[in-house]
């Protein structure tokens, strides 16, 4: 799928499948094409060429079918700040074709479900940032969506509020919903089942967070045993390559989390301590896009990896 704005090619050929029921993250720097791809899938824009289907429906010809089955939390607020949360949800219900009575019931249910009952009747603008985001989420849930789109949904929230927000999202995903989200908080993307890294209008990588990190050269396993020499010999015999010349045992592995249980089970010497270091997604992105590591590249990629800095705009 390609999307052009005039001469600017925002998406240069995207080929992507998101599985039903998974949490899927779209990760990339500003201007990479995240919002454009998001807007196309959310029926707000049309692809210039190529096509996309959401829940089996074409995003250009079956928009209403998709709209009925999806919920969106935008980066920007999409609630009426002067109206109460209850009024907002009630109105949204009307927009989804509920009768006034059904819309009112749905609003009440959602407010209870998301723990917003106390704040429900105050004008939305008087709520805290975290509550307002919850209200946005409630709004997105009015239609009981099969797929939930989140576009930088936690931008500007403090750590606690973000944790709570993601807790709720995980619960929704566990209930069988597909969640498609963009973020540039790298650690938020970790909750995804799979991540697509997007850069300059192209998907540069698509995999599970763990496998993505493995591309950097895997993770690091550090072992402390009662007899390191014997452990080293055993590891070498098993085809592992412990880093030579160190006091401790250090092992580079493509997928350390998968191999550690086996090592612990089968190592013939007693293990006193084991540590696993994983490379961060930021490392992965920097490696894949060929931009230097943090410090070398003061661009948006390096900055956005850290919360707090990326949030201020």
């Amino acid at each position, binding site marked *: 799928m390609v999307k052009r*704005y*005039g001469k600017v090619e925002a998406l240069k050929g995207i080929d992507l499948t998101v599985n039903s029921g998974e949490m899927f993250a779209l990760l990339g720097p500003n201007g990479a094409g995240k919002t454009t791809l998001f*807007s196309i899938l*959310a*029926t*707000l*824009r*049309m692809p210039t060429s190529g096509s996309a289907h959401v829940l089996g429906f074409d995003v250009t010809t079956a928009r*209403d079918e998709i*709209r*009925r089955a*999806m919920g*969106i939390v*935008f980066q*920007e*607020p*999409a*609630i*009426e700040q*002067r*109206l109460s949360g209850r*009024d*907002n949800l009630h*109105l*949204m219900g*009307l*927009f*989804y*074709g509920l*009768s006034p009575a059904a819309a009112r019931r749905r609003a009440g249910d959602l407010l209870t479900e998301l723990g917003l009952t106390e704040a429900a009747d105050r004008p939305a603008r008087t709520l805290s940032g975290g509550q307002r985001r919850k209200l946005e989420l409630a*709004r*997105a849930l009015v*239609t009981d969506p099969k797929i939930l789109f989140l576009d930088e949904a936690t931008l500007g929230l403090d750590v606690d509020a973000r944790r709570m927000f993601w807790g709720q999202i995980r619960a929704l995903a566990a209930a069988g919903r597909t969640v498609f989200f963009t973020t540039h908080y790298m650690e938020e993307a970790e909750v995804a089942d799979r991540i697509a890294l997007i850069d300059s209008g192209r998907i540069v990588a698509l995999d599970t967070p763990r496998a993505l990190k493995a591309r950097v050269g895997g993770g690091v396993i550090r072992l402390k045993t009662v007899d390191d020499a014997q452990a080293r010999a055993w590891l070498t015999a098993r085809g592992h390559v412990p880093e030579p010349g160190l006091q401790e045992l250090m092992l580079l592995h493509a997928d350390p989390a998968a191999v550690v249980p086996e090592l612990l089970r089968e190592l013939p010497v007693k293990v006193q301590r084991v540590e696993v270091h994983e490379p961060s997604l930021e490392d992965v992105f920097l490696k894949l896009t060929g931009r230097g590591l943090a410090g070398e590249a003061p661009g948006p990629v390096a900055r956005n990896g850290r919360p707090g800095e990326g949030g201020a*705009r």
Partner: protein
Amino acid sequence: MMRGIYAVVVLDLKRFWLDRARVLVGLLQPLLYLFVLGSGIGASSQLGAGDYRRFIFAGSMGLTLLMTATFAAISIVFDRQIGFFKAVLVSPVPRPAIALGKILSGAAQAMVQGLVLLPFAVLAGLPLDVLKVIEMLGAMAVATVVFSALGVAVAARFTSVTVFPIVSNAMVLPLFFMSGAMYPLAMAPRWMQYAAHLDPVAYAVDLMRGALLGRFFFAPALSLGVLAVFVLIVTGAAVRVFNRGEDDSALGASKFNWRR
């Protein structure tokens, strides 16, 4: 479809209610026109201050309805960026329902503003009776729908809040000045009379003036016919814009501006 229209109207009227103080502020402009401009210009016109005030009451009413309806339409521009409307655009509401709902709610808001102004007709020297009021209300209803449809059709094309008021002023003021709201078209130069034939505001104001004074510049049937056709065309245009959605190239470009 009907539920969609209902939802848009309920949303807008709820907000209008929050802003109800604006109705009083909205009285200021027409009253200035009526009693300050009207008395000043009237004193120096052939009509005399009293007659002139009676004459321009329909004009100030036209201005009020035009301004209120246009202002209501501006909410589309705001909303699409950082408001409830963004969520509405991803809901399965039929796009024509959004356009029609916006037109109706704009008309309703203008009507409320107009109703508040109407009693001042008596102060302007226009005695009201039941028949006149009924005729006037009918004319106002027509005018509000016309102005609101025009406002929505124009507003729906813009995403930039800063550009729209400029365009709207460039559109609203000429339409108002050419309409004969502030002067009798019958006494105006020929070319202005011709121009007025192209101005929907002229027909709408003439209908209202006729209801109050009993004298029409255009035949009422002609006015109603022209306005009906105009509303159909403009509503069609508004529906088309909403159908096209956010994917206008102009909208696409400005999408990146509101991140600031």
